């Protein structure tokens, strides 16, 4: 994120702002806030909302092929929840003065950022369980911290709601993974292959290594971040590896070993080239994701126009009758 020149903030207001946060108070929409804080929140919240919406696509891809009625309903409900999260957080960004139409425009023109994980294709049914387990799991690690500590009220409250539903999704995802891992040889192979494809991209969800993250100090001071990227990533790894072991699945990392001293699972080097490629727009299906959102938007233009036209006609009739 480029550092833009900002108006010099009033030092007294800034000091009071930082003191409020230090006291653990919530910053609400009508409160004074530094422009850079506002921009940071807009960036985080809009990226989160975009992620929920784009995230509907890789999972929506398998609703029509879900192999049992329970899984079909479950997956459809999960994607519904994500749409709801997206809607809720878009409304949250509006509290910061952002125009939702502009956010949508940025998404469909490929300018908006969203979580890199959704630029990977879902290739088998097992991807559904693994996404619930890994991707919701990683999101929860991140969002639980926000739900507890985020200084911006609307976003903190949104995270409380989101985390509750995502914990349920993660549980269902892992349950599906376990069923596959303990199922037929073909099912076991399917879910192991899915794990092998999704593990490293999931670790990349936590962002660049701390050594590469310039904004962290200010974000920590402003209660926008509580833990660093590497801390959250390690927490996720520690949580997840025992779960994999419990169901007889391996992770595609020959370096993996448990360090008794720290209690951490030490893992191998992430391919940061791949990470930056995907972030830059050159992942396996970035273009397809943006194209799908753009198609939905453009193909739906006549529908939105009809709704608007009808509302106007109704209003006009109402006004005429009242007159």
């Amino acid at each position: 994120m480029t550092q833009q020149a900002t108006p010099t903030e009033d030092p007294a207001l800034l000091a009071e702002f930082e003191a409020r946060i230090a006291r653990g108070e919530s910053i609400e929409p009508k409160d004074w806030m530094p422009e850079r804080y506002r921009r940071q929140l807009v960036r985080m919240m809009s990226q989160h909302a975009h992620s929920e919406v784009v995230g509907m696509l890789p999972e929506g891809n398998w609703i029509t092929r879900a192999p049992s009625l329970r899984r079909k309903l479950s997956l459809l409900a999960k994607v519904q929840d994500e749409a709801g999260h997206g809607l809720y957080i878009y409304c949250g960004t509006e509290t910061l003065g952002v125009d939702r139409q502009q956010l949508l425009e940025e998404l469909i023109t490929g300018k908006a950022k969203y979580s890199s994980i959704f630029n990977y294709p879902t290739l088998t049914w097992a991807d559904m369980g693994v996404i619930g387990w890994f991707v919701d799991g990683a999101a929860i690690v991140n969002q639980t911290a926000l739900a507890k500590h985020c200084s911006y009220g609307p976003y903190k409250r949104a995270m409380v709601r989101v985390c509750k539903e995502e914990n349920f999704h993660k549980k269902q995802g892992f349950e599906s993974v376990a069923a596959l891992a303990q199922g037929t040889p073909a099912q076991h192979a399917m879910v192991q292959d899915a794990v092998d494809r999704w593990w490293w991209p999931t670790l990349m969800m936590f962002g660049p290594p701390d050594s590469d993250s310039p904004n962290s100090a200010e974000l920590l001071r402003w209660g926008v971040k509580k833990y660093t990227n590497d801390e959250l990533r390690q927490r996720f790894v520690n949580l997840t590896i025992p779960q994999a072991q419990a169901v007889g699945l391996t992770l595609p990392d020959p370096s993996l070993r448990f360090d008794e001293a720290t209690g951490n699972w030490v893992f191998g080097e992430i391919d940061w080239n791949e990470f930056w490629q995907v972030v830059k727009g050159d992942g396996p299906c970035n273009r397809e994701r943006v194209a799908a959102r753009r198609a939905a938007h453009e193909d739906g233009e006549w529908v939105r126009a009809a709704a608007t036209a009808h509302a106007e006609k109704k209003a006009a009739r109402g006004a005429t009758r009242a007159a």
Partner: protein
Amino acid sequence: SDPLVEYLIRHGDDRLVLGHRLSEWCGHAPILEEDIALGNIALDLLGQATSLLGLAAEQEGKGRDADALAFFREAVEFRNVQLVELPRGDFAVTLVRQFLFDAYDVLVTEALSRSAHAPLAGVMAKAHKEARYHVRHSGEWVVRLGDGTDESHRRAQRALDDLWRFTSEPFLMDDVDRAMLAAGIGADLDALRPRWEASVREVMTEAGLQIPGGAFVARGGRTGRHTEHLGHMLAEMQIVARSHPGATW
């Protein structure tokens, strides 16, 4: 075969197929709010299908369950009306078809909520509450589209013209329906038809849409004579299950 099994499968299949068609919109709707709305309606229908096919499998007593019925029958064994298997088309096709079904659904679920078959009555009582929300949602959209822009009107009219011939089949009574009606289990579809027509005419009038003429009645789904669309839909729906026979998920 047991007419009650046949009857439960018919209504279960209607909701399974229609719920599946609606779920195809996931991630592709014109507005996020509609993605949610259509998804919710799909969830309701699929939930009803799960219950009804479960009852059918139990009644059949051959060791099958709802999943076996949903994922391991051929197209010619499905008993849904043709209306629900048609492709989703554009948003106008989806919402006009949905309204035509919802207007029927509100009536048939109400009738079946008084079925002498208690489990069926229970499922249908809940389905009736859901149908009332569905028909309000779809009816409002039919009006918005019919009385929106020239383009939306044209698309809605074309949808209605193409779908109309499929709207008789839900009301056609055969030996199975008559047996169920005689047993106090099934609905009197003949009696529902004029009420359906009246509510449909009302909405179409408000929407400025013309109800097509033409006497041709498309039918056959209730006895497995489907359109060519159902087979393609089932290929997608059943491929994973069929690729792993005997597996659990």
